[in-house]
């Protein structure tokens, strides 16, 4: 089954092309690493797949939905199945860990229930289960700003686990952490510690990390797909070309 299908997708910002004629199919359950230098179009591509950026041309189909025709209630339902992790993690530091984990589940809760949970936390068993999977079960009631950078990274993963999505989009989740932790986070995103596997698309700077964890590597250069191969077949020259200047 196809999880993501990009068909001739282009994105222009004013006169600048961020993506040009991208054709791509990603099957369910794949872990894809997105590589390329800064400005190559990695974030734009993730934004398009997430439905946060509308392409100027082409069609985007995600989890069986054509994003252009999706709105209102159906869009919300679709969004519950897609999780985003950004470089900044988007955690709210003044909240307890459990609330940041439950934030992944807000799409399933009514606003009233969400508000009540801030006062008297709900879904403790589920949040605890998610935190156990990332080894943070003892920090469930700690304030997030008391956690180390690495622990926060894992809270962000626990939030994704709590959401239980079908598709995970992560934009350079490893760029601000040390190598050991990058390895751990990348492992969690590609091989979720859950019985319900997901499709993940992770943009990374470090090609070695991509090769080690992802099954497939897609290289972007000047908004075009310049490389698309299984991670076992990728050569050092291929990667070096990707990061070269000029066209």
């Amino acid at each position: 089954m196809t999880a993501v299908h990009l068909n001739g997708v282009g994105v222009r910002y004013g006169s600048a092309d961020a993506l040009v004629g991208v054709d791509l199919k990603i099957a369910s359950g794949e872990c894809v690493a997105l590589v390329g230098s800064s400005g190559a179009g990695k974030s734009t591509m993730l934004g398009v797949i997430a439905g946060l950026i509308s392409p100027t041309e082409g069609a985007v189909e995600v989890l069986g939905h054509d994003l252009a025709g999706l709105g209102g209630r159906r869009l919300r339902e679709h969004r519950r199945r897609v999780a985003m992790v950004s470089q900044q993690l988007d955690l709210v530091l003044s909240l307890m860990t459990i609330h940041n984990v439950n934030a992944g589940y807000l799409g399933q809760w009514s606003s009233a229930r969400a508000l009540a949970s801030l006062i008297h936390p709900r879904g403790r068993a589920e949040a605890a289960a998610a935190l156990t999977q990332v080894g943070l079960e003892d920090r469930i009631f700690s304030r997030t700003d008391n956690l180390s950078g690495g622990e926060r990274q894992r809270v962000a993963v626990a939030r994704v686990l709590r959401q239980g999505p079908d598709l995970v989009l992560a934009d350079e989740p490893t760029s601000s952490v040390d190598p050991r932790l990058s390895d751990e986070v990348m492992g969690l995103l590609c091989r979720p510690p859950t019985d319900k596997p997901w499709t993940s698309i992770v943009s990374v700077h470090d090609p070695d990390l991509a090769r080690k964890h992802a099954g497939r590597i897609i290289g972007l250069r000047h908004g075009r797909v310049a490389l698309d191969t299984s991670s076992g077949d990728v050569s050092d020259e291929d990667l070096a070309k990707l990061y070269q200047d000029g066209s």
Partner: protein
Amino acid sequence: MDMTAIKSTPKLGWTVRRRLVVVALAALGWAVGWAGVGDGVVNTGGISGFGRFWAAVFNPELGGEFVRLTIEATAVTLSFAVLGTALTLLIGVIGAVAVSELVAGNGVAWRLSRFVLAVPRSIHEILWAVLLVQVFGFDPLVAVLAIGVPFGAVAAKVFAETIDAADHAPYRALRASGAPALSAFFYGLLPNVRGELVSYSFYRFECSIRSAAVLGVIGAGGLGFQLDLSFETLRYHEIWTLIAALMILSGVADWWSSTVRRTTSRRVSRTSTVVALALIPLSWFWVKLDVSTLWSSRTRRLGADLVSDIFPPRLGPDGWGELIEASIDTVAMSIIAVVFAAGGGLLLGAIAARRTGNVGRSGFAAADLGISPGHGLEFEPEPAQPASSGPKSSVAAGLGRLVVRLVLLLARAVPAPIWAFLMVLILFPGLWPGAVALGIYNLGVLGRLYSEVIEERQAGPTDAVVLVGAGRVQSFFYAVVPTAGPRLISLTLYRWEVIVRETVVVGVVGAGGLGQLINEHLAARDFAAVVGAIGALIVISLSIDVISARLRREFV
């Protein structure tokens, strides 16, 4: 040095600072000229009454009966402030959602709601009160609404700006994962701005206390009302008892507010919030607030009457001439008042500020640290020693600060109309009593704000000039003012905007400007003309806002 080597002295052009001084002096010169100077200003005949007022300071009325009355009146003023603040926050939160770009976007509805909120902001609490009294009579609701409506509009603007300035990434991330807007707001945004909102709410409470006292003067009850009664019957001893109560109330509110605003401890802010929330039902009970009055048939009838009286707003019997002259009076009054308040406030605020910085703090000079010209560069300032060194000078300085702080507290705790009553004793009617009264009151407000800014500025530059041997005054002008300058100027310009609106407060007791005109139309029950004059005031207020914003851009 051979001076002939220098061909010409470098010329300094029109710097920002020079232009600011010229603009301020020109405005002041015009305002003073307009208000008039000479024999017609000071009324020597009233000096004995003025003297008796101050002589009563040390002899306040302490009879059991009057003290009980004072305590009850204090509770009423506090209750108005608490309930007014509660309404302020309610309107503020709902309004913020309507005018925040994040939540409401920036379409037509957003523009419209911004405009709708600008109007109540431009109308001073006291004008809300005089209009609401026509509908509700002398009901506690009047005070609560008069504080809550205009303050709520201000709070909505501030809250919206806080929300728009916050980090939106968590909010957007939650929305992207399918969370409803309200849930995303509670989880992704509110926790990040909660501290700022709590701190601003306490600042509003502090303002509400002063406002509640002013509303008392026009008959809403509480300390302001008792002050007015005692003033009219010339019982100066009672006045000082009431002023003491106001100073305590206002002082505690100010202290509480600045403690909450400066604290980093979550326990302090949480405890304060709980105490503040507990005060709401107590206040409700104490003033016997009955919200059903809001929709009673009498309210509806009188409200409809007032609306039909008001529309269409029109000029007073003397037409445009009168309105334009009163408008110019208002502007002149506000300029005199703000210059008076800023000058006095800077002087007293500087004294009231605790010493900051490593060198100046405990009052020992560079020489005490053993710096001699020989090893100037190796010296590294020691961290400040607690008061142990030089105890004599710091006790004197501490006492001086305390006295100045009390003077500032007195200036802002006594409502401006009461200062105006007092000024009318020694100044002939005209613009001066009102301008000076507003000047004194705002001196108290600005002095406190200035001292906070001075305390919070960077200490480095002051240390540097103290270490080269500069004295107190020199270091003040060479390091303190330049470092804190932009903040001080922008605070002053914001205050000017407030003072323009406050001119009605002294005007309503007859001290000139549009306020006095409004008061005359009120006495004639000519509500259409009242609203006409309020319209003129709104136009002036909004124009001054624009000028002040331009000046801030230019000079800050």
